[in-house]
């Protein structure tokens, strides 16, 4: 036995003690904010919007919507981006919670289902008002928490059916279509395809000639579409794609096969290029979840609760986790979607749940 390791041991135990102390004091602070719930002055509220990155137009419009809301209540939004990296997202959340702000409002896009639980637990402990969107495991419910106000998502079955119906109308109710699926083991791909199948049942004249996975990718959709076009030839009257990137890839394939304008194409997500294509008439339809609204609404709900204008206990169970309304974009209304914009009245405390399309079950 030598003496040398002892300073290290002492240092380690000191660190441990410090960590334990820090943990205790943090908990104490958490208890305090929880009792204060709902009594914040509007000026004390801190708004945080977190998305994956600003390099995709959808998430950029989300942050722009958050800024617009923050401006309307005389605050600024703190913009966080984690580059699609789950670990980084958790780090950012714990850093922002560790600052100990009492009136923190978070509008978060969790990277995946499994990332939601730690965010919810952290926010609950710190008493921060949290709204999550898109991803959460089915058994984790906002109703079981005090400050996780709402979870917002979109019904993929519905959007898949909407564009399926739009295509059926565009080809006059009869003819063959091909379907380009997303990454097969994601909920979005499964739900959207289930929507197409529902639409096919409704439109008996439309037959599904073939369905292939193109993994939400423009390049893969191009190759797959070319192959399917040679396989089925003139029988293909329409192409259903589970997202806009694949729809745009299919448009390129049609152009290369000399079939531009002869085959109807529809996708989902309303990315700017697709909205432009719908406006030009080269694409039939796409579906918009309205990213700017998503960016604003999460902060608005949290802000209303933090300032006491809404009480968590008074929010209907159906509004704690819900499908929000989505919009079919066709040539008739494409111009309205080409520029992201927000409507101030959507974010008033009495209206924040106006776009609830149904409870998330």
């Amino acid at each position: 036995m030598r003496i040398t390791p002892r300073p290290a041991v002492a240092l380690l135990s000191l660190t441990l003690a410090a960590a334990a102390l820090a943990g205790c004091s943090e908990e104490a602070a958490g208890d305090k904010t929880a009792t204060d719930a709902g009594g914040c002055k509007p000026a004390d509220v801190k708004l945080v919007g977190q998305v994956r990155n600003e390099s995709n137009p959808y998430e950029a419009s989300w942050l722009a919507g958050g800024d617009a809301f923050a401006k309307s209540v005389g605050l600024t939004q703190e913009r966080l981006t984690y580059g699609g990296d789950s670990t980084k997202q958790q780090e950012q959340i714990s850093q922002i919670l560790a600052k100990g702000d009492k009136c923190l409002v978070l509008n978060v896009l969790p990277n995946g289902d499994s990332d939601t639980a730690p965010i919810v637990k952290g926010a609950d402990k710190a008493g921060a008002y949290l709204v999550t969107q898109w991803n959460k495991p089915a058994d984790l419910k906002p109703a079981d928490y005090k400050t996780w106000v709402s979870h917002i998502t979109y019904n993929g079955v519905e959007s898949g059916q909407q564009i399926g119906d739009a295509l059926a109308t565009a080809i006059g109710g009869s003819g063959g279509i091909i379907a380009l699926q997303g990454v097969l083991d994601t909920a979005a791909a499964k739900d959207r395809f289930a929507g197409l199948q529902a639409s096919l049942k409704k439109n008996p004249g439309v037959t599904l000639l073939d369905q292939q996975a193109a993994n939400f990718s423009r390049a893969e959709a191009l190759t797959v579409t070319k192959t399917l076009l040679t396989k089925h030839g003139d029988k293909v009257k329409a192409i259903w794609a589970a997202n806009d990137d694949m729809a745009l890839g299919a448009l390129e394939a049609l152009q290369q096969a000399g079939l531009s304008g002869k085959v109807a194409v529809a996708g989902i997500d309303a990315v700017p290029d697709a909205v432009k294509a719908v406006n030009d008439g080269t694409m039939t339809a796409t579906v918009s979840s309205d990213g700017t609204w998503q960016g604003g609404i999460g902060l608005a709900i949290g802000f209303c609760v933090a300032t006491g204008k809404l009480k968590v206990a008074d929010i209907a169970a159906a509004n704690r986790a819900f499908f929000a309304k989505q919009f079919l974009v066709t040539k008739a209304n494409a111009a309205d979607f080409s520029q992201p914009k927000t409507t101030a009245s959507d974010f008033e405390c009495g209206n924040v749940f106006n776009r609830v399309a149904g409870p998330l079950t």
Partner: protein
Amino acid sequence: MFAALSPQFRSLGNAQNIMDAAAVLAVVTCGITFVLMMGSIDLSSAGVMGASALTVSLLVANNRNDNDLGLLGIAVAVLLGCAFGCLSGLALVLLKVPSFMATLGVSAIGLGVATLMFAGVQPNITDAMLKGWAIDRFLGLSYLTWIAVACILVGWLIQRYTRLGRYAYAIGGAEEVLALSGVKVKPYKVAVFALAGAFYGLGGVMVTSQLGAGLVQAGNGYDFSAITAAVVGGTLLTGGRGGVLHSAVGVLLVMVLTNGLVQVGVSPYWQGGVEGLIVVAAVAAAVIPQRRRNQVVK
């Protein structure tokens, strides 16, 4: 086999389709073949293609800026690919970083550069010539396919008739022997990587032409498919064997396989697995004669 199962597979239209679909993969595989012949491996194609795709889409006529450099823009993108290849080569030779790690790093750098250039707005190309490459046809095949054929020819000539090509073989076969006989191996290694990079750069340009837009993910998956195609064609991962023409055959086999599975109507849920299985079987069949001669397969 596919021809028996599906009448459309036999059609002339589908043969054209396979050739057109194989164009980009053929060019990328051409590049990677030289690296494999040398006994190294190159995983940088995804990043290099992404960077060159963004570069070319921002330099020719597009919706983001007023550039309209045409062919010059394409040349710059290919040179950029060349520079990235050079970087991998230098990391391998000077810093002694193993090739798979060096090229993986370069791929990440390429993707980073591409993301910076992407800057949130997708550049759509309006350049009539570059778009025309994918659409216009000459003797039934798109211009891109003819470019790929030209690349294979150039690749074969380099492999057959230049010192670079001959040494690439020799380095893969027995690097020590070559070094002992007084050949400076290092510059040739860097040159081979630079050559491969130039092919990836051109591949990135071709993807951009096909998609009509510069995508960061332009080269996604090409690294794996190109290595698969080269190996299926008979180029050994241990180096010293194979060549550009072998790889061209490998590319066609891989494309026939993916096309055939769709044509025959194999469910997409099964395709990935079936494809992998056939590739492993093909490689195993190619390697069996090797094992008999007691060569270790890494």
